[in-house]
């Protein structure tokens, strides 16, 4: 197909389209019109006229215009224009299609339009030579012209597709390209209705639906054995004929149309292209753009089964946005089918049918339907729908086999191990919600410790008595509900509801004293964990301590379980700043693992990492480093050198380096970590995004601002998709980007981002959390740069106030805020206050083992304060020593060094010490040649 010469190629960028000359008075008038309209339109209808008359102040023509506009205002509907354009688009589309009727494609004449969908339109056609009277369906792929390499792949693939010969798969008869270069496919014409409508139309019983579904599975399985993945299974592609025979359409077609480099190269393009597809049946890997495998078909079959059973899809587009839907598919667990059947009882669904009628169309009452779905069918569907392909059924055959087991009343595989799976997912999903962070570096916390132990325990339990297995399931079902509801990422606005649900759950468990101690302990632990994820640490501790107590009392040696709970408790205590208790819990957990010979396990590695994080939070850098190094070594031994687990520990180690001001080391570790993620996990993986952020943050600190800004923007974009704006991680990235913008001297942007970060931090950590304090200092930093000292002072004081209750006194954050406030005092002519603050800062830096440069920076400022207080002897000592130290550790071009030097010079010249001034110049001035040869 010819590339159309496009008028835009030479046009000005549209964003700067040339503004027509507007006469000033007219522009002013227009502005006024807009303003009056804008104000009037928000008033109640009956007040609008009067208001407009007054606002127009006798300008009759203006008033006429305003009133006309008000008459034309169509809020709140989006009405007339949208409808007109919809209709225009429909008309254009229809005409485009109609134009093809009667034309010949290959050896088929198009007779009528059968339908149209995401990729193109389908026509009913018959052979043009009338050799056979057989009718066929011709699909013309309209999107195909997007893919220049299409025809070659097309030819290769169609051979494979044509070889599929199965009674339940619509045969591919022929394929080729139209005169216009659009690919077309000729397929067996199936006269039938989509499987969901067929089932509802015939009011098929649950059993009959399952039988039909099993036939569908057989067809998909056959295709998989022939190495063909469908990739786009949905009711519209599964037709059932009058005789009740299911026929699958479009096998493998999606692949022909998918993932061409042209489409994927531009994010915007992909995004726009996405709008053409309904992703409701797409698996997470498809949405994330990962390789599609047979497992994706398993997932899609799960969605179809879900819909056949409940009349609903697990995820639906709720007008708001497709992005939201995609995020749900990748992050949220759908409600279990039985709970859908239950909840929907009196709610009208989109088709206008109640759940009762859904149930009725399955030959059951709503209660009976719920009961039939609870247990096996819930478990089977949910297993097919798992986010990670590896956790789904390994094949369609396994899915079908489990359904057959269910029909034969045999135990199904899907009901085993769910508890471990969901707690793991829950933990993973929320890991970032709790990641404590230091210096804007949110530390990665890996919580596999609990999950791996749990997995093991569940595995053991499976081998134990059935009773025990049922108990585990009791827990898992109960928690599934809580998990599903308590997910703060489903929708920021629904968090309150989630908390309410959690409260309900905890009341339920507290009230039910008949529970087995072990079950109770696990539930208490899960509730405690859920509260922690919600940021309600105090409450979490209550439940976790209860759980620990129960486990200690237990007669059974549930010791690994105790280690799990202790680990959870340690994390929560750490969040509360109760470091000593947290450390005790961690150590006890490690001890337990050790006595069980589970010392060299991921669990231990995670505990070590946790301890390291705590030491970091306490400000004990050496001890933190020690723990992280132990953990890194163990992790490397356990997982190898290219495993995400290792990358996580390396990130932690990196933050220690950062605090030790070893930027080289930190950058190296950050690159290593980012690299591991890049090769081992998908693009939108939270940890990968985090590593981008970490590397970006370091590069920013190293003055590599361009590279940094790029990484940070990427990370921020991804995080806004993943977590929304009010999340700790998004806040951290906003902060880092703010710093970068500050370095680029884009102060306005910097301030905006810093304020966003503060607001996000406050919302996600809480207003009194030390990280929120940190964001206050960050904003203060920008404001100082902007010379808005009064505002900066307010922020710095707010930070100190928060630190006062959230951090130990000897913490570098405190010193940092003191330093900042001291600088503000200097800038605003209050040297005595500055002296007090800066002295405190210098001492605190020293006590916390801070890097020389930080001490020197504060010491230099202190020298300045003393100089202004007319105490030249002390002043000279601080000014000159700090300058020397800064030169030694940071070099002469560092910003802090330059400031220190300027202070010293000013001091000497004010005192007329020409000799010292000259000595300073010769000793430390950056020689101009140096920078030349340096290049």
């Amino acid at each position: 197909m010819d590339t159309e010469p496009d008028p835009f190629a030479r046009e000005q960028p549209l964003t700067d389209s040339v503004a027509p000359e507007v006469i000033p008075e007219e522009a002013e008038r227009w502005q006024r019109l807009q303003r009056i309209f804008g104000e009037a339109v928000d008033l109640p209808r009956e007040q609008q006229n009067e208001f407009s008359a007054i606002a127009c102040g006798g300008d009759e023509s203006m008033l006429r215009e305003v009133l006309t506009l008000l008459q034309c205002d169509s809020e709140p509907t989006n009405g007339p224009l949208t409808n007109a354009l919809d209709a225009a688009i429909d008309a254009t589309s229809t005409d485009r299609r109609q134009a093809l009727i009667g034309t010949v494609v290959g050896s088929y004449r198009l007779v009528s339009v059968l339908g149209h969908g995401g990729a193109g339109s389908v026509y009913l056609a018959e052979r043009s030579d009338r050799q056979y009277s057989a009718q066929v369906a011709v699909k013309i792929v309209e999107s195909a012209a997007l893919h220049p390499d299409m025809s070659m792949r097309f030819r290769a693939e169609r051979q494979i597709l044509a070889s599929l010969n199965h009674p339940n798969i619509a045969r591919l008869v022929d394929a080729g390209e139209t005169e216009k270069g659009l690919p077309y496919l000729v397929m067996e014409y199936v006269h039938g209705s989509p499987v969901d409508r067929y089932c509802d139309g015939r009011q098929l019983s649950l059993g009959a639906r399952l039988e039909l579904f099993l036939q569908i599975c057989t067809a998909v399985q056959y295709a998989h054995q022939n190495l063909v993945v469908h990739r786009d299974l949905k009711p519209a592609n599964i037709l059932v004929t009058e005789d009740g025979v299911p026929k699958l359409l479009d096998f493998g077609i999606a692949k022909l149309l998918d993932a061409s480099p042209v489409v994927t190269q531009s994010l915007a393009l992909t995004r726009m292209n996405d709008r053409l597809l309904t992703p409701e049946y797409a698996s997470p890997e498809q949405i994330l753009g990962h390789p599609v495998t047979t497992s994706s078909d398993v997932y899609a079959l799960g969605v179809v089964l879900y819909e056949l059973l409940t009349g609903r899809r697990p995820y639906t587009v709720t007008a708001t946005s497709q992005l939201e839907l995609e995020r749900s598919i990748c992050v949220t667990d759908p409600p279990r089918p039985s709970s859908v059947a239950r909840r929907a009882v009196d709610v009208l669904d989109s088709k206008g049918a109640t759940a009762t009628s859904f149930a009725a169309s399955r030959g059951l009452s709503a209660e009976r339907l719920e009961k039939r779905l609870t247990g096996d069918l819930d478990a089977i569907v949910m297993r097919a729908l798992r986010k990670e392909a590896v956790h789904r059924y390994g094949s369609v055959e396994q899915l079908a086999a489990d359904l057959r087991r269910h029909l034969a009343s045999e135990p199904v595989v899907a009901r085993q191990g769910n508890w471990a799976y969901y707690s793991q997912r829950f933990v993973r999903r929320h890991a970032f919600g709790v990641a404590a962070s230091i210096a804007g570096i949110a530390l990665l916390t890996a919580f596999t410790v609990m999950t791996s132990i749990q997995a093991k325990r569940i595995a053991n339990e499976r081998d134990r008595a059935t009773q025990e297995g049922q108990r585990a399931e009791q827990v898992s079902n109960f928690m599934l509900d809580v998990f599903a509801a308590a997910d703060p990422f489903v929708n920021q606005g629904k968090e309150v509801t989630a908390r309410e649900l959690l409260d309900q759950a905890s009341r339920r468990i507290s009230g039910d004293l008949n529970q087995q101690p072990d079950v109770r302990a696990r539930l208490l632990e899960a509730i405690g964990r859920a509260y922690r994820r919600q940021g309600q640490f105090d409450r979490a501790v209550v439940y976790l301590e209860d759980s620990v107590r129960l486990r200690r009392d237990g007669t059974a040696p549930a010791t690994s379980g105790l280690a799990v709970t202790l680990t959870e408790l340690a994390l929560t205590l750490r969040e509360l700043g109760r470091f000593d208790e947290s450390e005790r819990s961690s150590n006890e957990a490690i001890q337990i693992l050790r006595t069980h010979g589970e010392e060299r396990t991921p669990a231990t590695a995670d505990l070590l990492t946790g301890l390291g994080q705590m030491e970091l939070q306490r400000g004990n850098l050496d001890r933190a480093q020690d723990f992280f190094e132990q953990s890194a070594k163990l992790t490397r031994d356990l997982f190898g050198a290219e495993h995400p687990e290792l990358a996580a520990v390396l990130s932690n180690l990196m933050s220690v380096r950062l605090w030790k001001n070893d930027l080289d080391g930190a950058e190296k570790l950050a690159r290593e970590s980012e690299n591991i993620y890049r090769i081992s996990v998908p693009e939108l993986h939270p940890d990968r995004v985090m590593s981008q952020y970490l590397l970006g943050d370091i590069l920013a600190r190293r003055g590599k601002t361009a590279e940094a800004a790029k990484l940070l923007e990427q990370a921020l974009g991804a995080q806004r998709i993943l977590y929304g704006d009010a999340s700790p991680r998004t806040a951290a990235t906003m902060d880092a980007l703010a710093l970068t913008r500050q370095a680029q001297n884009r102060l306005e942007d910097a301030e905006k981002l810093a304020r966003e970060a503060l607001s996000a931090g406050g919302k996600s950590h809480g207003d009194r959390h030390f990280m929120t304090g940190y964001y206050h200092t960050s904003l203060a930093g920008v404001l100082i740069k902007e010379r808005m000292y009064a505002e900066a002072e307010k922020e710095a004081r707010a930070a100190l106030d928060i630190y006062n209750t959230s951090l130990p006194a000897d913490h570098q954050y405190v010193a940092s805020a003191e330093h900042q406030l001291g600088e503000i005092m200097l800038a605003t002519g209050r040297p005595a206050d500055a002296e007090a603050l800066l002295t405190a800062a210098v001492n605190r830096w020293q006590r916390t083992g801070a890097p020389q440069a930080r001490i020197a920076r504060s010491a230099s400022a202190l020298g300045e304060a003393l100089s202004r207080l007319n105490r030249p002897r002390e002043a000279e000592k601080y000014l000159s020593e700090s300058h020397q130290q800064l030169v030694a550790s940071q070099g002469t071009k560092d910003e802090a060094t330059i400031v220190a030097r300027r202070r010293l010079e000013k001091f000497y010249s004010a005192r007329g010490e020409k000799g010292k001034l000259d000595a300073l110049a010769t000793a430390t001035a950056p020689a101009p040649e140096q920078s030349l040869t340096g290049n």
Partner: protein
Amino acid sequence: MKRERAGHTLQATAVVHEAFVRLVGMDVPWQDRMHFFAVAARLMRRILVDHAKGRQRTKRGGELSIVALAPGSEGGQGATNAGEIDVLEIDDALERLSQRDPRLAQIVELHYFAGMTYQETALALGISEATVHRDLRMAKAWILSQIRSPESSL
């Protein structure tokens, strides 16, 4: 009920694809998302307008390619006279709007022709969502006023 996204994206396969084909065929470096969407919106607009003009020609000026609103789809005040709106009229009015206020015209293009939400438009243009909301409301009313009585403009 407020339908924020211009809802034609799903059934618009043929047209949107046509826009895509043209977009991809264009040898233009996309400076950014904004640029991309701006061009996409402009293309969509052009395809629809060209099509409407073509229809007009084939029908020899008989009846215009007037599209009727779906019955019952309108509840808004002031929409009483909105029974028939032609895409060509929208195009004309939009052209006049861009003479007067190019920014408003661009917001309209992005929202209606590229299907961008308020939020996306706000992000793309670096303005607040509230501003997009306000501007679109004004622009819509203005365009409708133009269509209903074009001579009333000053």
